[in-house]
């Protein structure tokens, strides 16, 4: 269960960012922003290494004392960032991968919507409800 989910466009501005409202949103926005640097580093590093099979899933970007940040980049250079609670150690890699899969599928649907202009903030209700399903329920 994620604590914060963000979708960032090719030009590095957020298309969609949502966090669990009980905690300070600004802190999450900052975490996501700093993780972008790590994402860029990973994308360029893979290019120089043996380019046999480049995956879209980037894995754990960096852990802070409370949170872990995971990244994923699509072929159109749109980045997804998921922040999860460090105390939730039962979350395995596969589960994170499936969360990114679902995000990518929903994002593709948003992209194919003729009323959506690429580059606009995402306002689709379907996308919203999919993301709510993945976030920690605020109690």
């Amino acid at each position, binding site marked *: 269960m994620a604590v914060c989910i963000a979708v960032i466009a090719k030009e590095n501005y957020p298309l969609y960012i949502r966090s669990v409202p009980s905690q300070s949103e600004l802190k999450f926005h900052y975490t996501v922003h700093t993780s972008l640097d790590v994402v860029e580093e990973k994308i360029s590093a893979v290019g120089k290494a043996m380019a046999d099979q480049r995956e879209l899933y980037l894995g754990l970007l960096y852990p802070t004392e409370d949170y872990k940040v995971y990244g994923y980049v699509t072929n159109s250079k749109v980045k997804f960032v998921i922040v999860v609670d460090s105390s939730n150690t039962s979350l395995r890699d596969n589960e994170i991968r499936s969360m990114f899969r679902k995000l990518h599928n929903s994002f593709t649907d948003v992209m*194919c919507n003729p009323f959506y202009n690429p580059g606009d903030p995402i306002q689709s209700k379907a996308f919203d409800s999919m993301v709510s399903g993945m976030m920690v329920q605020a109690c």
Partner: protein
Amino acid sequence: MADDALFEFLHMEIVSHVYKEQASRERVSCVSALESMGFRVGQGLIERFTKDSPTFKDDLDIMKFLCKDFWTNIFRKQVDNLRTNHQGTYVLQDNKFSLLTQLSNGKQYLEEAPKFLAFSCGLIRGALSNLGLESVVTAEVSLMPSCKFQVVIQKT
């Protein structure tokens, strides 16, 4: 199956509708209207098709993907010939372009052909733009139904 026929008929209607709508305006704006339609469709399509494939190594890899998977998904066949000068210019040649086969089998209606290629030019430009490559796409026909798309990648 009937699926290809649906798109071909829809495309023909789109072209004739755009031209009827803009009868008072210039011909050039019709072509750009069709091209920008293709652009938006190309962006959405590429997002769907590259969902599962790994990242592309370089421009040539992207063009090869365009010629094989992208073309097969849309026109049910691959591009017959891809040529490049390795400096950002690519020529995609399709000897039996599905949107032109119904028009003629030689030189008849050659002047009308560009209208029917504008959407596909936009499709290619949209696909490339979403993959990070700005380009200029033009098409030429000398003998129907074969046509050539010339893609020039803009290096920034």
